[in-house]
C-alpha cells in the first residue's frame, strides 16, 4: 500500500492505494464515482475518460499512484450544483444521448477540448473524440452537441 494525495472534483483525498491500482478503480470502487465507466480496460473505448490537470486522459490506463498531487475532474464534478454544465445541457438538448454509457467519457473529452479550443470545427471535434467509441449514435448528434456547447460557452464569455 502506498499513500497519495489527490484532488477529485475539488475535494482533497489522502488515499492508500495498491501499486497496480488504476485511477478508474479508485474512482469507481473507493470513491463511489461510478459515472466514470469501464468499457474495455484497454484504453480503446474512452468510456473512462476523465480530466487530469485539465487534459483528457484514460483513467483505465492511468496508475493512480502516478496521479499523486494532481487534480482530477470527473463527470460528477462538472455540474454547478443543480445547474448542468453547458456541455451537459447541450448533450441533453441535442439528443446526443442514447444508452448513455459512453456519454460521461465523451463529455469529459469535450470539456478538455473546449478548454483548449473554444471554437473548434466539426473536424477538430471528431478528431478529439476519436478515443470515445459510441455504438448507439453514430457520433452525429454528439458532435453537434459539442459544437453547440462551444457556442454556448462563447456566448457566456461574451457577456
Amino acid at each position, binding site marked *: 500500500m502506498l499513500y497519495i494525495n489527490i484532488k477529485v472534483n475539488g475535494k482533497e483525498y489522502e488515499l492508500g492505494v495498491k501499486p497496480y491500482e488504476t485511477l478508474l478503480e479508485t474512482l469507481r470502487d473507493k470513491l463511489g464515482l461510478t459515472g466514470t465507466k469501464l468499457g474495455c480496460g484497454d*484504453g480503446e473505448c474512452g468510456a473512462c475518460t476523465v480530466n*487530469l490537470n485539465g487534459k*483528457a486522459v*484514460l483513467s483505465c*490506463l492511468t*496508475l493512480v*499512484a502516478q496521479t*499523486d498531487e494532481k487534480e482530477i475532474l470527473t463527470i460528477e464534478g462538472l455540474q454547478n450544483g443543480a445547474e448542468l454544465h453547458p456541455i451537459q445541457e447541450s448533450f441533453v438538448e441535442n439528443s446526443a444521448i442514447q444508452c448513455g454509457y459512453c456519454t460521461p467519457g465523451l463529455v469529459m473529452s469535450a470539456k478538455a477540448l473546449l478548454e483548449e479550443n473554444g471554437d473548434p470545427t466539426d473536424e477538430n471535434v471528431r*478528431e*478529439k473524440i476519436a478515443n470515445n467509441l459510441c455504438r448507439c449514435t453514430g457520433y452525429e448528434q454528439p458532435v453537434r452537441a459539442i459544437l453547440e456547447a462551444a457556442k454556448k460557452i462563447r456566448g457566456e464569455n461574451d457577456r
Partner: protein
Amino acid sequence: MRNIFRPSEFRRPKDLHETSWILSSFEGRARVVAGGTELLVHKPLDVDCLVGLSKLDLDYIRNGRAGITIGAGTTLVKIEESEALSVEPYRILREATRLLATPTIRNTATIGGNICNASPAVDLPPALMVLDAKVIISGLEGTREIPIADFFEGVKKTVLSDDEFMVEVKIPAFPENTGASFQKLRHHQTSIDIAIVNAAARLSFAGDTVKEAKVAMGSVAATPIYSKKAEEILKGKILDVDIVKRAAEAASGEAKPIDDIRASAGYRKRMVTVLVERALEESARRCGK
C-alpha cells in the same frame, strides 16, 4: 508464478542512479512506467515493481546547434505541438505522432514508452531512424548512446539490461535541402489503428543529386529496419520516377513481413512499395524537387 498482473511495489526514484539501483535490485522484475498506456494494456505477469519516472524531469524538447534532444518522458502531445519540431525534416515526428493512437492517449503516452515497448509496428522508430536519431540509456555504470536502429533486438526485446532505462532521444542537425516523409497504412485509415506497415524516408540533396538517402520501415520484420538497398539505389542519383520505383521495390524486397490477423505478408510487401514510393516522392517534394 502469478497468472495476473499484480506488482507489489510502486517506486518513484529521485535521480537516475536511484532508478537504476531499484531496477537492478529487482533483477528484471521491475518495469519502468511512464504514460502507462502500454503497460496497462499488456499487464505483464512478470513484474514485481513499477518504477515511475515523474521526478526525473525527462519531459523536455530542446533545440540546439547540434540538433534536437527530446526527454524520454516527453508526452506525445508535446511532440505533435512542438515548435522546434515544426521544421524540415523534423516535422515528420509531429506527423508520425499525429497518426499514432488518439489525442487522448497522446496526452499521456511518451516517446520513451513508444520506443521501449519495441513493438514491430510502432510509428516513431522508423521516423527517428531516418533522422539518424540516437538514444541515451542510463544505467548503474552511467550513460551510453546508441543509434536507435541498434536499440531493438526483436519483438518486445531491446538492448536494455536489467538496470538500464532510456533517458533521451538525440537527433542531429541536417543540412539545408533535406526533406523527409512518414507514411502509415491502417485499415481503411481508421484512427487509433496500429500500422499494417509504415515507412519513413529522408533525402538530402546536393543540387539535384541525392547526397544522402535513408529509408526505414516498420511492421515488416521483428524490429523496424532500414532498407540499405533502397538507399544505395538512391544515393548519388538525380531522382526520377524510375529510380524511386526501383528503390521502393528494393525496400519491399528487403521486407520480411509475416501473415497475421491484420494483414497477409504478401499484402504488406506490396504496400511497402507503395508507402516507400510515396515517402520518397514526398521527401523530394519537400525540398522542392
